[in-house]
């Protein structure tokens, strides 16, 4: 009920257009603390429209994507009886985290052309244009499939069909679970409204994922004062070694 109320309140404040999204997030910041153990984000909102509801059914597609980075995928092959890395492909950019949530099966709610245009499904979210031209002899498709498979096993890529709840073609909500192994950065969150596979409206916002406190301090120090950081690591190591030795000596005497 609270979501509905919140959504209606936002609804009242938004500017007017044909059919558009009004969005709310349970939080637009994720703080990575030392004991960070994953997080769940509620994404909810309402469809705001001036005209009466059209006949065709409305669908909602929500994507959350972490920062994209180049990735190298290597493949092992058997040569002279032993398994070694033979082929490798550099993919231009793959998101560190990617989740898609929809109101129904993706191929029903989204046409292929729209998927291509907005890069919504997981394979489309990975850019591998350069890879195909760089390694013409290699089947790049197999490598992207492998990347998706490995990432999916780590829960870093999630395909959640029918995970978005849509009430009376107006109110929608879903929960995206962020795994514990989260990379820092701006997580692009996109909401698409579709009718008969066509995107009729879209909305974008950012969830800010950041290390805080001790995590932040150590990370910054390791980058900005690497010498001091290294010496600090060594000092801790030596102190711990000495401490354990002294403690054991006392225990043996006592």
């Amino acid at each position, binding site marked *: 009920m609270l979501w509905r109320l919140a959504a209606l309140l936002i609804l009242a404040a938004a500017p007017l257009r044909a059919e558009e999204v009004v969005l709310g997030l349970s939080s637009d910041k994720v703080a990575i603390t030392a004991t960070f153990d994953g997080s769940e984000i509620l994404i909810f909102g309402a469809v705001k429209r001036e005209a009466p509801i059209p006949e065709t059914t409305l669908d909602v597609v929500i994507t959350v994507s972490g920062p994209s980075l180049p990735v190298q995928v290597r493949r092992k092959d058997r040569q002279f009886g032993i398994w070694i890395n033979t082929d490798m492909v550099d993919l231009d950019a793959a998101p560190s985290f990617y989740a898609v949530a929809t109101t129904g099966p993706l191929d029903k709610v989204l046409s292929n052309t729209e998927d291509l245009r907005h890069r919504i499904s997981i394979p489309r979210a990975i850019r591998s244009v350069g890879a195909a031209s760089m390694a013409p002899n290699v089947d790049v498709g197999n490598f992207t499939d492998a990347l998706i498979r490995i990432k999916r096993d780590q829960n870093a890529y999630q395909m959640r069909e029918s995970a978005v709840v849509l009430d009376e073609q107006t109110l929608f909500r879903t929960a995206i679970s962020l795994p514990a192994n989260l990379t820092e950065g701006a997580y692009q969150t996109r909401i698409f409204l579709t009718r008969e596979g066509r995107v009729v409206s879209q909305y974008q916002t950012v969830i800010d994922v950041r290390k805080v406190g001790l995590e932040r301090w150590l990370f910054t120090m390791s980058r900005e004062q690497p010498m001091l950081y290294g010496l600090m690591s*060594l000092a801790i190591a030596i102190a711990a070694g000495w401490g354990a030795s002294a403690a*054991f000596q006392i225990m043996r005497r006592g």
Partner: protein
Amino acid sequence: MQIYLPIAEVSVNAFLLLGLGGLVGVLSGMFGVGGGFLMTPLLFFIGIPPAVAVATEANQIVASSFSGVLAHLRRKTVDLRMGTVLLIGGLFGAALGVVLFNYLKSMGQVDLLVKLCYVVFLGVVGGMMFFESLRAIRNTRRGAAPKRKKHGWVHGLPFKMRFRTSGLYISVIPPLLVGVSVGILAAIMGVGGGFIMVPAMIYLLGMPTKVVVGTSLFQIIFVTAFTTMLHATTNFTVDIALAVLLLVGGVIGAQIGTSIGTKMKAEQLRILLAMMVLVVCGKLALDLLLQPSELYSLGAAGGH
């Protein structure tokens, strides 16, 4: 209890890491090896990125070897003079090894060569140690006095030096050469070198097994401290939170390992070390021979 590691960007179980550090620390205190050979694959398995695992482990080894050396110093089983000579040779060797490694890398397929060399090397060293210590154990059972090879060609070399703790009066050339070759191997294979150093000290230099463990730990401290600084300043891959979790277990383990080690007979210690070397060798060989369950692996682009 889950802890998020700031550099590795991975969330891990703190108690698991404490246990892991402890286990490797015991081996380190007993045998005088750093334990990187065991820690690296275990950290990979937990999901720590390889670069972070290798760098952080060096920091953890500094702690456990320091803890172990202090325990050995109390028992007067560290030959500081021999350790220093080996270390000087080792630093030269490491510098040479880096040059050699880059040369091999420019020729391609260096990974494979290194792995194959490593498997063969560990197999030969482990096998020889195993049979030697087996023979020694049989001899002591029969009551035969252990035969000591004295006065070989080694004793004819110049620049003689007295190594009191080891009970040796030999030329500094063999220890320097051992240091250099272990340094080269360590740089090429990316391991601390304790595995190669310990057998070399026992069989090539003829040092007593008890002294070897402490002396090996002594020189490992410097090698790994240098490695830690190198990784921290060039790759930014030392994760201090991970290191702390590992080294708390490690320093305690090293103390326990040392007291186990001193209670055992030299031959028993050698045969256990030989078995461990053979197990590691077998594991590496299996990795090469068996089909992996996932043929593909991910890495940061541009990385090695």
